[in-house]
């Protein structure tokens, strides 16, 4: 993705604070609606996954909860910029709940979780009205306000979080200083669970670090969680970049080191009160420590043992019951899609139609030329070219049609929400199974049906 230089034609020119944006044109709202719809769609899917995890294994993926929180957070920020108070306020309340969940202040058994779906649904309703340019949706705004009151009443008093200062952790203060509140919570929560804490340092060429880092992070996620990814200048700051990954895993640092056999990558336990163990950075390429000395299996084992003891001490000092650590999804979602206005695709489709007419004209001329003895040769050549054009046109037509296709699942996602609400209201287990949700239909057919 290249840098996007600013342009005078920028759609959102002059947009800004609520006071300045309330009079903004519908065009700007369209920009908001397009991004907000994408966010809402992801939220519905993620909430559905959350519900499945709660009612399935009972273990909830923290990345999933954080992702839903970030969605509500983004929605709130965007709504605020466009002066859309009701959507902003509703998103704010949803964000509060999600913040409480991700920071462990609200339990996953809390009934307030059941209201998340409804809240997101209300935001979607307000968005639909906004999209349709319906300014007289007072009833929906009132419904939103009533819902906010309901949410506030349902939110439990926040639990106070532990105030330990990560004593016993051998982590550079620069890394601890850059942890967000959420990341601090994840670290604390994993210590409480008695998981292994490790630091993975890896150096990359700055021009191409993403692929290597992504591979490294994925490998870590197969056995644990990446709490933080802190970049710092490499030994050659002009061309290199170093990343320190603070990770929590179910395996000790020795086993993690075996799994992360990448160049210029060092793994060490961050749970150590033993300075010798704390500084044992093993060079994966040379098998030497930082001082250049040959490492022995015995000293590594001692380090691991010291780390294990420290981990036990730290975990036992946290006043909570250990629970089974969850398996963490190894894949991080990376968006590789672009959002395109459907009208642009319509224009493309029209152009394809016009090209087909032109192609027919060319075919007619080619046939005519082929029929005359004097121009037969050129006529045959033109016919060949026309057939080649025909094939490419068909591919183009199929490609444009393909872009317009969306999975049928979208229509039925609302049913999932109805089922979840039924499950909550009736207190019964209700299952809903979709088959063939990936079947694709043209967006114009799916939209009216949804």
């Amino acid at each position: 993705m290249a840098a996007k230089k600013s342009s005078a034609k920028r759609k959102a020119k002059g947009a800004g604070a609520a006071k300045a944006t309330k009079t903004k044109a519908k065009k700007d709202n369209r920009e908001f609606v397009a991004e907000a719809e994408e966010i809402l769609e992801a939220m519905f899917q993620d909430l559905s996954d959350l519900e499945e995890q709660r009612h399935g294994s009972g273990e909830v993926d923290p990345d999933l909860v954080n992702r839903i929180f970030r969605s509500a957070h983004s929605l709130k920020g965007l709504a605020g910029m466009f002066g859309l108070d009701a959507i902003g306020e509703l998103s704010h309340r949803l964000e509060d709940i999600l913040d409480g969940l991700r920071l462990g202040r609200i339990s996953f058994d809390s009934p307030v979780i059941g209201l998340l779906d409804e809240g997101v649904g209300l935001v979607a309703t307000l968005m639909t009205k906004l999209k349709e340019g319906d300014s007289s949706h007072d009833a929906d705004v009132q419904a939103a306000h009533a819902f906010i009151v309901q949410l506030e009443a349902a939110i439990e008093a926040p639990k106070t979080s532990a105030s330990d200062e990560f004593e016993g952790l051998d982590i550079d203060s620069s890394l601890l200083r850059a942890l967000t509140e959420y990341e601090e919570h994840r670290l604390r929560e994993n210590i409480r669970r008695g998981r292994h804490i490790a630091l993975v340092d890896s150096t990359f060429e700055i021009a191409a670090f993403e692929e290597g880092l992504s591979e490294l992070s994925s490998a870590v996620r197969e056995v644990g969680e990446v709490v933080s990814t802190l970049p710092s200048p490499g030994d050659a700051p002009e061309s290199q970049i170093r990343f320190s990954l603070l990770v929590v895993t179910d395996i000790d640092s020795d086993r993690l080191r075996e799994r992360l056999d990448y160049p210029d990558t060092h793994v060490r336990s961050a749970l150590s009160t033993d300075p010798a163990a704390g500084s044992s950075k093993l060079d994966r390429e040379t098998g030497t420590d930082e001082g250049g000395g040959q490492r022995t299996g015995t000293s590594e084992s001692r380090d691991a043992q010291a780390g294990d003891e420290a981990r036990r001490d730290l975990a036992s000092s946290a006043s909570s019951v250990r629970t089974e650590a969850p398996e963490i999804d190894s894949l991080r979602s990376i968006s590789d899609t672009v959002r395109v206005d459907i009208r642009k695709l319509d224009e493309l489709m029209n152009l394809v139609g016009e090209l087909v007419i032109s192609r027919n004209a060319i075919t007619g001329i080619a046939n005519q030329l082929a029929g005359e003895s004097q121009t037969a040769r050129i006529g045959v050549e033109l016919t060949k070219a026309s057939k080649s054009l025909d094939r490419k046109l068909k591919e183009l037509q199929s490609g444009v049609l393909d872009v317009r296709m969306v999975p049928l699942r979208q229509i039925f996602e609302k049913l999932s929400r109805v089922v979840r609400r039924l499950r909550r209201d009736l207190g019964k287990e209700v299952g809903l199974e979709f088959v063939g949700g990936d079947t694709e239909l043209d967006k114009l057919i799916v939209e009216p049906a949804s």
Partner: protein
Amino acid sequence: MQRILIVEDSATMRSLLASSLEELEVPVKIVEAESGFEALRFLPREDFDLVVTDINMPDINGLELVSFIRQNKKYVDIPLVIVSTEGSERDRDKGLQLGADAYMVKPFDPDMLRQVVIDLLAGRREER
């Protein structure tokens, strides 16, 4: 020409930040990064005069980006503005402690953002 790097994962918010900063009274070139990683790749390419960053982003967060910039001799003097949605006081304090020069809450007032940026750019010119 003042070169400003905007780091923000929301396309709409990036657009709003950029359009606000285009109206500075000085000529500006705005480069937009849609993630912290993209910002790390863009930083060596230009001599930026100012960086505006969000905190909550999917790959590295804004605090980690601020920490990186302040640790790097080449970028240590670049003025930094965090523009984040109202949230954790703690994250805000951390951002300032890590070396951000200003912190603004979304929804931000474009006039106020411009004023903060103008002041920081003027300070940088004086330092030079």
